[in-house]
């Protein structure tokens, strides 16, 4: 059917592209032309392979050979040796770092794929609205195994031994949480799935629910069996209409097939799941606030203890887990705790899904084993910083997390390392910042979010965060002093120590970590009244360069506030007291005569 018997795929990702992948494509085509092979071998440029460190990469199909560090002049060897004689060009093969043996095809070099998809195993493979496709990929097998072959205690032990920790952010042992819920005797218990994904830039849970809703339903039933609950509730924000729609379809299909409801698998175990909708408040991701919201009360947190495992929804023992935590349960049951705990670092097992956003080339949803470094995530999988700019920092854990700088790039990502570095894992949002981002403005941006989302119940969060936000605003406007920086820090520490719930206790994290890692930038704002990144408008001054200005009057005509004066063909002047720093003049000027001071 195909007119081509072979394809040469050249990586055209940004990083490889800058190292001559265009020239490689050209040379390959020229070589093929010279040998009369253009009709049977196709050369094509592809997207990023996620292996930039070894780029440029050329992949030969159908035999899956991967060549690394390919130079334009290697085109000849590839065509003469591989294409014509069918012999691999050994010197261009990837060498196993341990054995130093060349690895001949991509199917045997899994390590070049930095990602491992456990939670996302079905996302993008199955039709989420068809239960059959889930069943075909071992769906509901784990539930069947649990109900027919394991006692609840054995299930809990398996989950505990796997080392799985809550993916919602806090990283509490999932097995231990289930054990606590099991221990508390009650006529009724609840399994709750927290799908109130609220971090700006986070979309992991939505993607799982939209792509593989049954994995969460199955895991909730497994949890129900383990803790002795027959009711499941999914708390999901109404802002996720498609996820809700697909969950409804999934629940209906599971019921029709007898996989939810009474007497599941003929074992006498009953379990059903209902949806509860949230209005999209950040604080409702906190489990006590979430439970209150489900009960129809205000979404405000309460002091723990009592923990939900003792008195949760309707005062009954309740186990709350995040979407991602649940989605990893069926594989843990089917492949075993030993398998799961073999992945990851000493204290953080398995994989973590991250939503990569910000100034990065390959914005996307990724899943990597715990222990992968930030460098691998940003510069390999993420394909590096957009527009060739310089990396400045990465905000992990959303507004509750911290901003890590280049000195943390080689830190293996896990729960404990991120805390040690001054941030948190959080739910998995990663926002990449480049040299143009101002760290005072960024801290202010995240604070703005927490101020808006604070429920107002406790003073440190309600009042403290507001003051923090005001102080940051003053610093951005050039009205701050060195004493303000101390004030920022002290207030942050007090809020962290005294706020009632996780929202307040973590809200100063961006400020603290950014002050830690970019203190000079804060000092520049208060002492020199300068914004090194050129973002804080109040600290900028648009100035006309007299040498370049030809007096064309274009800037004066575009200025919305008439701040620019000057006669035709004479040097113009911008009045800083009128200028609103909109930048229109600079954009309009054809002579590069306007610059920012």
């Amino acid at each position, binding site marked *: *059917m195909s007119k081509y018997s072979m394809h040469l795929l050249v990586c055209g990702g940004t990083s490889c592209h800058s190292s001559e992948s265009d020239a490689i494509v050209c040379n390959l085509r020229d070589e093929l032309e010279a040998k009369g092979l253009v009709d049977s071998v196709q050369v094509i440029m592809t997207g990023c392979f996620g292996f930039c460190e070894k780029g440029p990469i050329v992949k030969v199909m159908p035999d899956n050979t991967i060549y690394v560090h390919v130079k334009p002049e290697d085109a000849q060897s590839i065509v003469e040796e591989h294409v014509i004689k069918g012999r691999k060009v050994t010197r261009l093969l990837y060498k196993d770092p341990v054995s130093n043996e060349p690895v001949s095809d991509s199917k045997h070099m899994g390590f070049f794929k930095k990602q491992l998809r456990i939670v996302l195993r079905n996302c993008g493979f199955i039709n989420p609205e068809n239960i059959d496709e889930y069943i075909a990929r071992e769906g509901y097998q784990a539930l069947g195994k649990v109900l027919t072959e394991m006692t609840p205690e054995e299930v809990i032990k398996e989950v505990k031994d796997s080392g799985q920790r809550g993916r919602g952010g806090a990283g509490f042992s999932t097995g231990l949480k289930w054990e606590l819920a099991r221990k508390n005797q009650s006529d009724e218990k609840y399994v709750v799935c927290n799908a109130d994904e609220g971090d700006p830039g986070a979309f992991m849970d*939505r993607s799982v629910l939209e792509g593989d809703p049954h994995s969460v339903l199955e895991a909730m039933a497994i949890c129900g069996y383990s803790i002795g609950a027959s009711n499941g509730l999914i708390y999901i924000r109404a802002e996720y209409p498609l996820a809700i729609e697909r969950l409804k379809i999934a629940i209906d299909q599971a019921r029709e097939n007898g996989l939810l409801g009474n007497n599941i698998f003929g074992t006498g175990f009953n379990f059903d799941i209902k949806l509860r909708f949230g209005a999209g408040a950040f604080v409702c991701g906190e489990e006590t606030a979430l439970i209150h919201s489900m009960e129809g009360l205000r979404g405000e947190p309460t002091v723990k203890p009592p923990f939900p495992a003792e008195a949760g929804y309707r005062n009954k023992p309740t186990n709350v887990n995040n979407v991602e935590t649940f989605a990893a349960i069926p594989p843990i049951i089917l492949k075993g705790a030993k398998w799961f705990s073999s992945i990851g670092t000493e204290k953080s097992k398995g994989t973590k899904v991250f939503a990569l956003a910000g100034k990065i080339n390959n914005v996307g949803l990724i899943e990597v084993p715990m222990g992968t470094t930030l460098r691998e995530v940003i510069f390999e999988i993420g394909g590096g910083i957009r527009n060739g700019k310089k990396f400045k920092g990465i905000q992990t854990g959303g507004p509750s997390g911290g901003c890590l700088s280049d000195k943390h790039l080689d830190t293996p990502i896990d729960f404990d390392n991120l805390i040690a570095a001054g941030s948190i894992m959080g739910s998995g949002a990663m926002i990449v910042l480049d040299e143009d981002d101002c760290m005072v403005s960024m801290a202010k941006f995240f604070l703005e979010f927490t101020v808006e989302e604070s429920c107002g119940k406790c003073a440190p969060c309600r009042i403290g965060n507001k003051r923090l936000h005001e102080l940051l605003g003053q610093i951005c406007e050039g009205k701050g002093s060195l004493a303000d920086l101390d004030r920022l820090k002290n207030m942050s520490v007090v809020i962290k120590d005294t706020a009632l719930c996780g929202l307040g206790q973590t809200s100063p994290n961006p400020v603290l970590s950014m002050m830690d890692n970019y203190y000079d930038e804060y000092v520049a704002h208060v002492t020199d009244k300068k914004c090194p990144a050129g973002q804080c408008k109040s600290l900028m001054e648009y100035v006309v360069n007299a040498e370049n200005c030809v007096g064309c009057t274009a800037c004066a005509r575009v200025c919305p506030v008439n701040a620019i004066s000057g006669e035709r063909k004479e040097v113009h002047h911008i009045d800083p007291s009128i200028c609103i720093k909109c930048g229109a003049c600079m954009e309009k000027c054809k002579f590069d005569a306007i610059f920012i001071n």
Partner: protein
Amino acid sequence: MSKITSLADLKKRREEIRKGMGTLNKATDPDNIVQVKVAMATCGIASGARTIMEFFLEQLERRNVAAAVTQTGCMGYCYAEPTIEVKLPGQDPVVFGFVDLKRADQIIEKYIKTGELVDGIIPVNYQTIDLKV
């Protein structure tokens, strides 16, 4: 649809589905026809995946290509939405990104009909797990 009442039942159902009993739209023998999956999470739909899916459904039929077009969830390549995966019989699936109507047309005319690759290929950069026991 009959209820699954035991683990053996579930396994039987799984094997039936795997043999291709009405799994994919219109597909009686999924291994011998072209399979197109369109990433239809909120983000994919927002960048135009629904139009692309309709295009494939309509055009593959009009151009007499035996194919099954289905929706799936997020493939993870947000930067390249809309994304689709095309599997030709007996070959490894190929993912294409930045699929607009023009590229969708090229994919049908070139890749699906003649096996010639077109721009926008996204190499698979992850491993996944096999739950088969």
